[in-house]
């Protein structure tokens, strides 16, 4: 028995359907615990005041936004190499979720930026590379939508995902180069200091991250199952003709 057995659409649905409620349940528990803990039971930061609490949404969302693309990359590779339909559909299913995560990270970042930097938006390298990531998601999804034949769409989006990943890394490097060179006035997002802040902040953050990760997993499983069923309907319709 190999793991590829689960790449069979029917087997996939049969295996994952009972799992989804559990994953979803744990994820929601983690989120509730993490967010409530973070929002109500941690002290205000002496420098940032209560605005620091947005970190419980911002950081996990940012993390998942990147990981979603990474997952799509792996799923695309599996499709190109082994041609399992489920992996192509999983990549398709992950894209909108990743995009929403990117948007959440951008919006919470913007909301945070207003009190911290006095501006909603700055062309900071990290912010900028997220904007680019958002564009990649947009293009990837648009290509899926634009092509009628599902296998063709899967092939082309996989190629795009591969090439896009290389360029995304390159962009990230470019953006850092660009901004550092021009000497940005605002402080870099608190990538440095914050984690050194006591566990009071860090533990609930960790819980939230786990919650977001599981939420992503549950959503991907659900959406993949939906894509599989949509494909099944299409196949059945084709047969009826």
């Amino acid at each position: 028995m190999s793991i590829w057995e689960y790449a069979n659409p029917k087997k996939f649905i049969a295996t994952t359907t009972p799992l989804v409620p559990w994953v979803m349940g744990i994820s929601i528990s983690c989120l509730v615990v993490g967010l409530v803990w973070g929002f109500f039971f941690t002290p205000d930061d002496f420098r940032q005041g209560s605005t620091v609490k947005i970190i419980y949404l911002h950081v996990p969302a940012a993390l998942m936004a990147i990981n979603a693309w990474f997952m799509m990359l792996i799923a695309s590779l599996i499709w190109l190499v082994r041609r399992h339909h489920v992996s192509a559909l999983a990549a398709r299913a992950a894209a909108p979720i990743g995009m929403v995560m990117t948007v959440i990270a951008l919006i919470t970042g913007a909301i945070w930026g207003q009190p911290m930097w006095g501006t909603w938006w700055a062309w900071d390298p990290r912010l900028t590379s997220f904007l680019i990531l958002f564009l990649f998601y947009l293009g990837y999804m648009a290509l899926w939508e634009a092509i009628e034949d599902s296998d063709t769409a899967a092939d082309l989006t996989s190629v795009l995902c591969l090439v896009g990943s290389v360029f995304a890394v390159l962009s990230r490097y470019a953006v850092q180069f660009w901004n550092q060179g021009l000497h940005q006035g605002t402080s870099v997002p608190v990538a440095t200091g914050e984690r050194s802040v006591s566990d009071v902040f860090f533990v609930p953050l960790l819980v939230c991250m786990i919650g977001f990760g599981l939420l992503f997993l549950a959503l991907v499983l659900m959406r993949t199952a939906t894509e599989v069923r949509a494909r099944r309907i299409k196949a059945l319709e084709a047969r009826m003709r």
Partner: protein
Amino acid sequence: MTLNVSDLTVVRGGVPVLAGLSFSVAEGQALVLRGPNGIGKTTLLRTLAGLQPAHEGSVDYPEDTGAYASHADGIKGQLSVKENLAFWAEIYGNSADESVYEAFDLVDLKDRIAGTLSSGQKRRLGLARLGVVGRKVLFLDEPTVSLDGFSVKLFARWLSEDHLAKGGIAVIATHIDLGIEAPELELAPFKAAPDAASSDEAFL
């Protein structure tokens, strides 16, 4: 050299259209594909030419000997007739000699910009391309569309005397009579059953 097709299933838009096709065409022979509109002639020819993968079964002929002519001619309207032919000849590493223009009655049109040709003249130019590629196995999709009676005869003459007689092979989809001697293959019996295995079968 022969073209061997065995147990072929061809798919279009995820749906199998023809299944269980087997035939072989020997050197110097042509095969005429017949069948009503939408039976799958174009799909079959594209599969034979290697533009799309066979869903099942195999297609076998020596590599780099095939050439395909589709409904569209691949003619550049901005180039002259001569330039169009010279381009394709060069791509295939040949040169377009005078006899091709004669065979397809293009001598007078040689320096005309292809965009100003009439539909039949354009089609003659598209067919003349086959005369310069120097390939042995031709897959022709309705080659005589828009041609008048005289031009159809010209084409039939070129096909039998200049191509088949020199050891070529041709598979031709057509609705009209070409006036060449060739076995016909009626495709209707090979129509794929609606529940035949498709590329989506994993989802059913």
